[in-house]
Structures are given as C-alpha cells and as structure tokens.
C-alpha cells in the first residue's frame, strides 16, 4: 500500500512542478512586452503590447486594414506586406495567398501575431482611414428592399473621401449573431458633405448586417463606421463618361455626380444609365431628373427590364439600352457599379463598342 501512496504523491509532486515550470516559462517567453510596429518604412510607428494579432494591434492604434470577417481568418482581405518580424507563413493563410503574394511577403494580418518588433507595408491610402462613432440621423425607405441611411459624425469630426469609395458599417450583436459584424457599403453622399456619411443598403436575404439594418437599426441609434476604402472614383480626365448601375450600385454614382457639381466640372458630358426590373425598384429619380434639368452636361436614363406598364423610361435590359444609345465608344470612359453579372455583361458591351478595358472602372460588389 505504501509504495502506491508514495508513487501517487511523487506523480502529484512532479505534475505540480511541471505546471509551475510552464507558468514560469509562459511568464518569461509568452510575455512579449512592448513591441514596435513600423509602417511603410517609418511613416508611422506604433508601440503596442505584444501577443495580439497584427490586425487587432493596428486597429487599436486606429489603423484599419479592410476585413470582411472581423479577424476570424475566413475572408482573406486583411492582407499587408510583413517585411520583418512576422514569423513563418501559417497554413491558415496559404489558401488566401497566391504564389506571387507569398513570395512578396504578403500575409493575413489577422493571422500574424505581434511577438517582437515588426515592419510592415500597407497601401498609402489606408493611413487616412478613420473610425467614426456616428448617430443615425435618418433612415429612408427608397424601395421595397433598399434603404438610405444618413450617419451624423461626432461634433467637430469630418471625413475626407473620394466620390465612389465605400465604408464598413458594423452591426451590434443581435439574435443569433454573437459578435459585432461589418460589411462594406458605397457612400452615396458628396465629399463636400463631410460632417455626415450617407449609405445605400439593399436587403440581402439572411445577410447578417443588412438584417440588422432592416430589422433593428433605428433613427437616433449609434453606429460604428470605418472608412473610406476603395479604388472606385472619378478619374481626373476630360473624357465624356458613361455611368451604369443597378440596385444599390446607384450609391457611388450619385456621389460622383454630386461631386462633379460641387467641383464645377461641367466640361465633361456624363450619362447615367440606371437599370431596374420595374418601377418599384427605382429611386432618386426626382433628384437625378432635377440635376439633368439644371446641368446640361448630365443625362439620366432609367431603364426597366420587365415592366409592361405605361412608363416614361427606357425598356429592356440595361446593357441593351446602353448599346442602342451609343455608336463608337472608344473616346469615352465608364464607371460601373452593380452585381458581378451586370458588370461582366456591361464590360462585354462597352468593349464591343471600342472602349479600352483600362478605361472601364467598376465596383463589382466583391
């Protein structure tokens, strides 16, 4: 009996010592202390407590990398170059990085842990991205499945963005959704209206953020926004432009047109083709018609693809309507925003009319 009790006691003592050793090791080795994140070769440096992910550490310093999944490693959008201190590439990252990216030290910021001083490189424009704690000033029902939201920025704060860019809107936990979730929405207001942000949101069946917007968000509520993001904006040329959008794709085009008015750009003809299925899917028609009346350089062409009622709009699928309105389009440039299917179909039509591919700019909703 005594040897058994002795063995149990020895084993317990050994386990206790091992646990103690692990705790001591964790204190010394897993306590990374203060680490420095160097961004773009010294453009910005941040001192952070080591141990968190690079994405979280940067966000704590108000540098926001785009992220569609909130850092769960499932969207692959929080990419940046890690030049030094990022440790080895992880198996959780490789599905989201192509060979070229892997060779160029591109990493997923949500998977890289800050364990020592680290040097990274991010696109310059990300440095101007800000976080805003806003208040919902108004919510407007535009159509049966599209709402317009106006977010008032905190007193004294302004946003600087290019017409056409987007922002990420965060939903709060609700129903089965236990964590804050964010999705991207195009800004529909003009950059000159810089004390507020307007977004257009189309309801996505089972969408986590659009369901929150449509069923839970109310006027006066607080809402978190991060932005601006995106490479979709009016290029500084003198070419005639054609804009094509469907559904909530109207948002960035509205921002671009309002911006052209605010900046006094009247030397460029602009035509906006807005495709919808039926009259119930149209919105902002009165506003665009008023702009058309006041500004001779602008033309608004709503088109309905399936509405047999008597209406004053063009009939047919938007690509057909664009095709019959133009001959040669080689000297124009195009701005498209809508579903991937619509963008692909538009690109085919524009190319067939002679427009070079590098003059077709689009926000493909993805």
């Amino acid at each position, binding site marked *: 009996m005594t040897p058994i009790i002795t063995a149990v006691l020895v084993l317990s003592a050994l386990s206790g010592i091992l646990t103690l050793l692990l705790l001591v090791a964790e204190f010394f080795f897993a306590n990374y202390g203060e680490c420095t994140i160097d961004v773009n070769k010294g453009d910005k440096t941040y001192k952070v407590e080591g141990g968190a992910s690079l994405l979280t550490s940067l966000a704590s310093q108000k540098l926001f990398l785009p992220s569609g999944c909130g850092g769960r490693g499932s969207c692959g959008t929080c990419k940046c170059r890690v030049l030094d201190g990022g440790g080895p590439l992880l198996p959780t990252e490789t599905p989201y990085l192509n060979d070229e990216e892997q060779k160029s030290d591109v990493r997923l910021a949500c998977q890289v842990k800050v364990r020592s001083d680290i040097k990274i490189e991010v696109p310059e424009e990300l440095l101007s991205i800000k976080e805003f704690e806003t208040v919902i000033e108004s919510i407007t029902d535009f159509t049966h499945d599209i709402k317009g939201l106006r977010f008032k920025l905190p007193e004294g704060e302004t946003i600087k963005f290019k017409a056409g860019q987007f922002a990420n809107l965060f939903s709060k936990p609700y129903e089965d959704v236990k964590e804050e979730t964010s999705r991207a929405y195009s800004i529909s207001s003009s950059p000159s209206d810089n004390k507020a942000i307007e977004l257009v949101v189309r309801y996505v069946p089972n969408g986590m953020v659009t369901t929150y917007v449509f069923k839970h968000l109310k006027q006066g509520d607080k809402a978190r926004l991060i932005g601006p993001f995106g490479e979709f904006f009016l290029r500084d040329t003198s070419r005639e432009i054609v804009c094509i959008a469907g559904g909530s794709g109207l948002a960035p085009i509205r921002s671009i047109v309002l911006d052209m008015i605010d900046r006094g750009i009247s030397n460029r003809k602009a035509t906006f083709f807005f495709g919808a*299925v039926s009259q119930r899917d149209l919105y902002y028609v009165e506003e665009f018609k008023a702009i058309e009346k006041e500004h001779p350089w602008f033309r608004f062409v709503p088109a309905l693809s399936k509405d047999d009622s008597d209406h004053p709009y063009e009939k047919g699928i938007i690509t057909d309507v664009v095709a019959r309105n133009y001959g040669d389009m080689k000297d124009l440039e195009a701005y498209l925003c*809508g579903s991937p*299917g619509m963008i692909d179909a538009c690109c085919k039509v524009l190319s067939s009319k002679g427009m070079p591919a590098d003059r077709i700019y689009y926000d493909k*909703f993805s």
Partner: protein
Amino acid sequence: MKQTPELDRVQEKMRPGVLTLKGFLGNDDRKLADIIAADQQALLRLRINADQIAERLQDLADRGADLMEQEVQVDNRYLIRVRDDRGKIPSPWEDGLFEKGDVDLVDQQTGKALKWNRLTLRLIAKHRFFGGYGSEYRIDPDVAYEILALKPFVDRSPEAI
C-alpha cells in the same frame, strides 16, 4: 464516417450567426459526419453522385445569369431567378470565399423548389455536404433526383459517389 475534431470545428462555423444569419444546419441536430453519411447513402441508393447534382445546378444557374434578376423559364420546366449580392461568403471549411447571390428554382412539373448559391455548390462538390434538414439551402438528394432529371451514374463504386 467519423466526426473528427476538424468536422467539429466546421460544424461550429455552420451554426446560425457565425458565418451566415441562419447557418447551414437548419433544425438538424445530427453530427456533421452523420449528415454527410446519410446523404451519401441516398446518393448510392439513387445511383447518382454529388458532382452530377452540382454540375446540373451550375448549368441551370448559368442559364439564368446576366438577366438582371429577371425570372426566366428553362427547359420548358423550370422557373429560375438569379440574384447577385454584394460581398462574399467564407466556406465553413475555410477553403475559399464565394460570391453571394441566390438562385431560386421552381419546378413547374412538381411545384417543388430549390435554392442555392455558389457556396452551396462548393460544399456539395468538394465536401459532399447538402445542408442540414430544415435549411432553406438544403439540396436534398431525393428532391434533386426527382426534379433535376438526373441519369444514373455509371461508375457505382463508393469513391465515385
């Protein structure tokens, strides 16, 4: 089929509110391995395979695409509406991101309906997952066999299913 720790992790991501609002499992409380195995058995019984179903659904989706969400009749039998939405959905297996947007199909012969998206097809083709009972995106093999007019698969080895 065993419920491995990996399947546990995948099943956790399939719960409502994790990757999508309603999740992938409907009201099905079986283990993911059992859901997949039961549908495999159905495929064996029907002598069809998962790729056939995924390819047929992709074909139907392609024929409804580029119509700006208009409903279209296909093969004199199906009413199809393809909707595109902004953004992408991650796979619960963490093997890619798939553009959002649902395809709604109604079979005019039987009145039965199917709903799927690009991720649904990936889960069927790659992981043999057809959705839990009660999930609106479930492609039940028996229903698919009935309304998609699939022909029996020639190679009847279990590996081909």
